[in-house]
């Protein structure tokens, strides 16, 4: 019985393994290219890790190519050699100087060719600011909608529901015009402002607050706590699980976002977010830069992938949050 059962299951594994191979293929290519030398990438050899232990950085050699003065200066070091031989000897020295392990080459180039560290920092600044402001705006509103009585509450909630229909990417153009009119394009503000209001966050937190018992709030009021502090000291702690899921949802979306930064940041590299930086890299890359570019891609993609692998359940919860309405 059991054997038949496993036999019946093996065709499922076969299909799923084939599917997994296609899904993993680009990740495989990305990481593999970031480990190999340009030559091995070009010739498609070396397997996953590459087999060369050192490679020569052609650009580095070219930049330091010995000229007349260098040869003249090196004459006493190489006594008895003519100029061509000295040139060759110097070149050989430079080549050993410029050779390194392909991994070192790719990853150091990723950081030195473009200010990747700056891009990563920008990514962190933008995603964290967006999330913090979203919470500051959404939490009091969600609390008011769930627990306070006031005239117009129905109207506000209606607005929230209506605004859920509008994808921010779709109205990027008028938003861009508005920001341009007030002179805010090419600033951090432009990257952050359109996302400060998350109607989805308000909706989500309101649903969550509905389940918090009124007694908890009444007790806090009895203790003389103001409404402001009730939101931040009573409601916020109860909402941590929901907030965590929302944080994952928000951070993943904005770390990976390419469309909006592409529109409001033009040319000013200091404001580039990681995807913009990678795109720029692709724009002026030639063949020998496949390795460093893939190293950049790996560095950009890995933080979220690693976080996901460490806390899968939470991530799946967070990302599919929008499906749990």
């Amino acid at each position: 019985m059991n054997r038949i059962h496993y036999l019946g299951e093996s065709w499922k594994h076969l299909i799923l393994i084939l599917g997994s191979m296609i899904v993993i293929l680009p990740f495989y290519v990305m990481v593999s290219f970031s480990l190999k030398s340009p030559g091995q990438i070009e010739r498609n050899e070396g397997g996953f890790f590459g087999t060369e232990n050192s490679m020569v950085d052609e650009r580095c050699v070219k930049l330091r190519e010995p000229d007349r003065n260098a040869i003249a200066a090196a004459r006493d070091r190489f006594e008895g050699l003519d100029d061509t031989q000295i040139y060759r000897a110097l070149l050989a020295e430079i080549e050993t100087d410029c050779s390194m392990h392909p991994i070192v080459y790719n990853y150091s180039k990723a950081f030195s060719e473009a200010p990747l560290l700056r891009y990563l920092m920008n990514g962190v600044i933008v995603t964290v600011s967006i999330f913090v402001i979203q919470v500051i705006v959404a939490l009091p509103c969600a609390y008011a909608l769930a627990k306070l009585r006031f005239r117009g509450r129905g109207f506000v909630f209606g607005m929230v529901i209506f605004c859920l229909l509008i994808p921010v990417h779709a109205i990027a153009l008028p938003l861009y015009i508005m920001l341009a009119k007030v002179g805010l394009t090419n600033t951090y503000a432009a990257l952050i402002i359109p996302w400060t209001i998350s109607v989805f966050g308000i909706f989500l937190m309101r649903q969550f607050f509905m389940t918090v018992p009124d007694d908890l709030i009444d007790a806090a009021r009895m203790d003389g706590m103001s409404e402001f502090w009730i939101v931040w000291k009573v409601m916020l702690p109860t909402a941590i699980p929901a907030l965590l899921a929302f944080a994952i949802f928000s951070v993943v979306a904005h770390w990976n976002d390419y469309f909006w930064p592409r529109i409001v940041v033009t040319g000013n590299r200091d404001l580039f977010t990681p995807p913009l930086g990678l795109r720029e890299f692709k724009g002026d890359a030639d063949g020998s830069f496949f390795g460093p570019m893939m190293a950049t891609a790996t560095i950009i993609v890995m933080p979220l992938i690693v976080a996901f692998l460490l806390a899968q359940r939470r991530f799946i919860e967070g990302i599919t949050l929008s499906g749990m309405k």
Partner: protein
Amino acid sequence: MAPRSTGYWFTAPALTLMAIILLLPVLIAAGLSFTDYSLGNQSANWVGAENYEKIVSRSTYQKMFTASIIYVLVVVPVSVVLGLGAALLINSLSFGGDLYKTIFFLPVMAALLAMAIVWEFALHNSVGIVNEMFQAGCGTIIEWVFNWGWIPFVDGSQTWYGRNCASQEFPLWLRDRNYALATICFIGIWQAFGFNMVLYLAGLTSIPRELLQAAEMDGAKSAWERFRLVIWPMLGPTTVFVVTITSIRSFQVFDTIEALTQGGPSKSTYVMMYAIYEKAIQQNLMGIGAAITIVFLGFVLVITFMQRYLVERRVHYS
């Protein structure tokens, strides 16, 4: 009891931001779509419905609608079916399911722009691994399987794989007008189906076991019968949601297009979001960009209302 004004204080920031960031832009777009505004000009001329007429009549925009609609009509059904299929397979496994789930979800987490660039490398004609694998498969059992020649009445040498193997030439994918949109669709499906799978897995766990057992006792012996009579109807709400969100997202496809094809070759991948970007941001033709924005919002509204209608009808019946 809290003072009544607290409610206003707490909702005022959110309400203000909603008005400025979400509602006002829609009105601005609607207004500008009737003008020939461009950034830097002090004023704009009222051109009536000219922009919309252009959208309807010019062949560029017809290609735009064709590309967008084909993209949505391919990516949505395929990624939903694959998501459902993967969920059903994974759910029926006795071991290993979690591993596949993790793998299929990876593309959802990765920055699409980065992965698009990686796909470009994988599909590259000289360093690309995809064409190399196709080539390596020629003349082996792989060709025999995938030229479908083993199916009766199919001539293996005339199928796609068979012909390409015979000529030793494989497509340039993103540079070929006949393949570019299909390739972009493929990347879209690759990225989206894991998300759908996870939603379906959640939907599957909410189907009560007793219901399946009852169906079995009532004569639904085969897996297909149980799927048709119990699982599929029970997954209805999930399906409605999955289809809606995938449609809205597919309409918004941009990253892959901008990084890989820029709408080409010969406008075959000129989707709406890219058209807005190219016309308005790059060429400073705000009027036409605004008109496309409004049409775009129209599509999104239609999809969402269809979802609401379907959801409500279901609630009514059950």
